[in-house]
């Protein structure tokens, strides 16, 4: 098996200001399935093509943003090895007991120099609403809303960017698919992959620690992006930009906001990455085209609007 260690982004726990409005947004508009609401108030959701129990967790709070992002690893041995590797690299590791979220096994956790909290786990219950496996149809229940396929990746903002990217590369086994280099050795954006996706996480330099730029949902194709755009206008969802395309990763995209100001993305496409691929680099002068390929310039919100 070629893919080992960290497999993929598995979950993202977001803070929201108004759970009722958030449920309309994530369940009815984006089209995630509600899995459960637990006694502590957290609500668990999933996209239709995910096998595991949940991928998006919403928690009521008085400020929005991201609590933590979870990555699934291949097996329990990989988790044990990952803890050893993190500790040997000088990273403090915390243990989260199995069941802190329903249906999930033990987790190891660390806070990155950028300020974000990352969890790793090997076990999660399978959903009874996962993709069909026996003589499967393309879907079992008809997809709703923007018809999301899966939670795909996050873009996070913070300082101590290089130190964080180093942990992802040297300890967690990620590779850098693309960077934005501003001058000499200064890199302001890393796009990192642990798979054959163009990115599984992206990190951008920002003066404040622990900021959340967006979590992204994969859609099937450009037509699905159009359907999502129709839904955004019909239901007056706050749109940041799009439909457009990224130069980096080549994904076709819309950025929009949930009712608490957390940015979401729906996207489709992008190239496949293999470990022998050369790193793609963008210089500062071309950063507009790198981020928004059709507009060829950043909007004010891209660098400044985060939660």
């Amino acid at each position, binding site marked *: 098996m070629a893919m080992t260690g960290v497999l993929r982004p598995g979950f993202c726990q977001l803070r929201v*200001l108004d759970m009722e409005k958030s449920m309309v947004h994530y369940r009815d508009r984006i089209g995630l399935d509600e899995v459960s609401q637990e006694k502590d108030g957290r609500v668990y959701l999933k996209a239709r093509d995910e096998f595991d129990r949940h991928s998006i967790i919403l928690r009521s709070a008085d*400020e*929005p943003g991201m609590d933590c992002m979870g990555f699934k690893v291949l097996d329990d041995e990989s988790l044990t090895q990952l803890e050893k590797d993190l500790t040997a690299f000088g990273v403090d590791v915390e243990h989260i007991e199995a069941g802190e979220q329903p249906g999930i096994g033990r987790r190891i956790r660390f806070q990155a120099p950028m300020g974000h909290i990352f969890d790793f786990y090997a076990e999660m219950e399978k959903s009874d609403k996962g993709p069909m496996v026996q003589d499967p149809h393309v879907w079992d229940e008809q997809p709703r809303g923007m018809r999301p396929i899966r939670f795909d990746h996050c873009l996070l903002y913070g300082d101590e960017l290089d130190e964080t990217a180093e942990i992802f590369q040297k300890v967690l086994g990620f590779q850098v698919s693309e960077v934005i280099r501003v001058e000499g050795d200064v890199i302001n954006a890393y796009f990192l992959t642990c798979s054959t996706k163009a990115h599984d996480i992206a990190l951008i330099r920002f003066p404040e620690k622990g900021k959340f730029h967006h979590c992204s949902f994969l859609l099937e194709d450009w037509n699905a992006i159009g359907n999502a755009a129709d839904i955004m206008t019909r239901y007056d969802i706050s749109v*940041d930009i799009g439909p457009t395309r990224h130069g980096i990763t080549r994904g076709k995209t819309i950025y929009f906001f949930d009712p608490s*100001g957390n940015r979401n993305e729906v996207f489709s496409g992008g190239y496949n990455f293999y470990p022998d691929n050369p790193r793609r680099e963008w210089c500062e002068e071309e950063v507009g085209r790198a981020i928004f390929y059709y507009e060829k310039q950043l909007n*004010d919100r891209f660098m*400044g*609007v985060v*939660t």
Partner: protein
Amino acid sequence: MCRASKSVLAELERQHCQTVSIGCRGGGCGVCRVEVLMGKYAVGTMSRAQVSLEEERCGIVLACQLYPESDLKLRVLNRKN
């Protein structure tokens, strides 16, 4: 004066007025932080990381969550931090 069903920011955006930055429009990001110097208003839910309770009592609000009930006089502030 704008209709109270629409936030100050939504009305400014409709009029293509760029005095206040347009961010998330959901009370989260804080780029539309303003101080109300005069007038009556109601507010929606705002991130406490951007507007503390004490600041809210002093008239500091996010324009996207600011619903006018009279003519307002505003001062534009920056995002906190």
